[in-house]
């Protein structure tokens, strides 16, 4: 039996694979984002200035300021763990949020965001922000997402979209 050498096929596939690898490699480098907690961010503050970071924390209601004309929003968030299992062990998300908001020793960070004030931005809601740390240690958020866990969460089934 004659052995078939499918040269064109190999060339074609090689070109495609190389192109795809390059595409993925270059976009991976340009759009990587670190997922961190407030504590982790503080511990690596120096090296992370200017890097794209996504972070989650609990909103402290007293600290929210908002100017409807310039759409400048600023508020402080406190440390909550990033790990599900830890959150479950500590009694569920709503308890973790309430405890962290009440804990004066929890690490905190100031967030600045420009845009309309989200409706869920209030005391004890969970803020998930994407952005970067500036030189003064303020987190400049380009994206702001808020969540309010339901009180029934622990015993009742979860809803889609929450």
């Amino acid at each position: 039996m004659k052995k078939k050498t499918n040269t064109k096929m190999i060339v074609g596939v090689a070109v495609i694979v190389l192109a795809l690898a390059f595409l993925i490699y270059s976009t991976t480098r340009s759009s990587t984002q670190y997922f961190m907690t407030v504590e982790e961010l503080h511990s690596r503050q120096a090296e992370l200035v200017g890097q794209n970071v996504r972070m989650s924390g609990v909103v402290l209601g007293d600290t929210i300021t908002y100017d409807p004309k310039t759409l400048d929003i600023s508020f402080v968030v406190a440390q909550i763990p990033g790990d599900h299992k830890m959150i479950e062990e500590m009694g569920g998300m709503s308890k973790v949020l309430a405890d962290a908001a009440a804990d004066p020793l929890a690490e905190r960070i100031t967030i600045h965001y420009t845009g309309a004030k989200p409706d869920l931005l209030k005391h004890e809601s969970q803020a998930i922000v994407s952005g970067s740390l500036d030189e003064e240690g303020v987190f400049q958020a380009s994206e702001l997402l808020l969540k309010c866990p339901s009180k029934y969460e622990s015993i009742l089934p979860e809803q889609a979209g929450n």
Partner: protein
Amino acid sequence: MFYLGFVTFVGAFVTALIALVLTLARLARKERTISPLSSLLAKVSFGLHTVSILSLLLMQLTQDYSNAYVVSVINPAMPDILKATALWGGMAGSLFFWSWVVNLCLLIALTGRRKVLDGWSFLIVLVNLLFFASLSMFVENPFNRVWATVEDKIVSALFSPAADARLYGSLDGIGLNPLLRHFGMIIHPPILYLGFGFFLIPFAVAVSQLLCGENGEGLLGQTRTWLLTAWILLSAGIALGSWWSYDVLGWGGYWAWDPVETVSLLPWLSSTALLHSLLLQKQKHIFRRFNLLLVLLTYVLVVFGILITRAGLLNSVHAFGESNISIPLTIFTSALFVLSVVLLLWRWKSLGTGWEMNSFISRDALFLYTNMLLLAILIVCLWGLFYPLVTGELTGTQQGFTRDFYDQATAPLFLLLIFLMAFCPLIGWSAAAIKKLGKAALLPLLFSAAALIPAYLYLTQSWVALIALFIVMWGLVNMVLLTLRDASKSRFFARWWDRRARYGAYFVHAGILLIALGIMGMEALSSTVEGFMVPGDKMPMGQYEIEFVDIRQEYDNPEYLTTEANLVLWKDGEILKEMHPGQDLYENRGQYISTPDKHSTLRGDVYTLLLDYSLMMGYVTIQVADNPLVNFMWLGALLMVLGAALAASRAPVLGLNDAGETIVLDDTEELYEEVLVLSQQSEEQP
């Protein structure tokens, strides 16, 4: 009602289990047919499953708040239709509904005109059914009831959790998440689930063929209708989800590369590739391995999607509760994956077709490029999904991607696909000579060049956008000309109807090009302004002006408080329309829902959003977006789905194969033949 629902669910589970055991015993005796008894048991199981799901529905409609699921998704103020559709609004209900869909697919496969299942594939479907049903049975049971213990603790359980616990029916229902109360969201999940479910049958058939050492040639004839139907439902489901997100989520986006969205795209990509290479297998008996791989991959991706959506595995930073079903689901997904890989490797040699790539622009090669591009997009998506997990394991700090990653990595691939879509029909179409090709291509080129003039005048002066527009227009004109090509021949309509499989395929491609047009409008040409306004203020937006008149509140609905801004849309000094973007405040949930208002034309949408307001101070913050061409996206999706349905509607016809035996010809037979003849002509050219 609890007992009826729960007992019938147990009955459905047990009958399916008995059918599984019987089938195993029969297969052990090397009999590959399904015994009438197990077939009957499967049908009984479906009947019981249906009664069970109906009783859950009834509990939702009658607001039986002793049921934990009802408490979590129903409240008294919801209209009945939403009370019913809340069946798939929550985790337990949607899982239960999904297992019912799997059972439904089994029933259709068993009773349909064309019998596609043998013992092995029957077994595979039963295993899937029992797996998902046991998730509902043992982990997320929708029939769990609410109990109050002596210490007044509220607990959710099937049966009394402690000696003195009593049923507790007075928890206030929370109601369905307001975001989910949109027509698109009401029908999006069942359509998507049906689409997902239909991929199971081809998967089971493929596994059976590999197990029994068949070469996969029967795959196409047996499962094409399943694949096409699944593809149609999946496409419609994705489009509905996108429309919902544009209409409801307020940010005016239609696609955000959220993991949950991305996973629904994965089986779409692999099944689209599959539909293409199945064409070649039918005609030339090539790409057998590729097709089996794609059939298997598609269903594995479906289950993977359920894992991502339901188990919150990849969303860890979003802190969705990681649920109890994530571990069994992960194991099941991995098992399906390993099974597929092992089977393919085992039979790999015997499936070879000896195909060689003879030319870089032959029809085979172009189909292959199409599939490579589709799979390349799939790989990009998978990389994006797995990256946080991989980096989390390797470095301790999870790293993910911004949506720029998906945009930048997939945009060139999508553009190449669109180019292929515009270019491929020409290869098959004219082709007898390069000269003739030039002539045939000239007309569409002129048409699409002409279309650029209004685009330049009214839409954009950006050259990149214009070139992209040009390619899309070129493809569209090609599709239209292909469809009209036979218009001059006699009995046009009868011929047209006869060949509707082929025209359906043209429609699908034209639909996708229209979607591309809409995406281009949203990504490259849209613009947004935000403004703080007091009554009487006017804000310019391109050729429009938006005036803020006043703001008002309504208390009509018991569930929420509506706040609406009255805006007037001006154009050239004339009033075009009054617009009322607003917000609904669900006080019990502490949740706001934006209700955007838009002025829609074919040119695009003027999309207004009430971002913020103060009744006391009388100001509002309004966002206005100009979204050119966006409506072509919905029109394109409609055309795509209708076109595919048209193609699928052609009943199979009898014909002769190469050996002169009578076989069932597939509905797209004619399309293949035509493409084959034309492309052979073109291949003969130097």
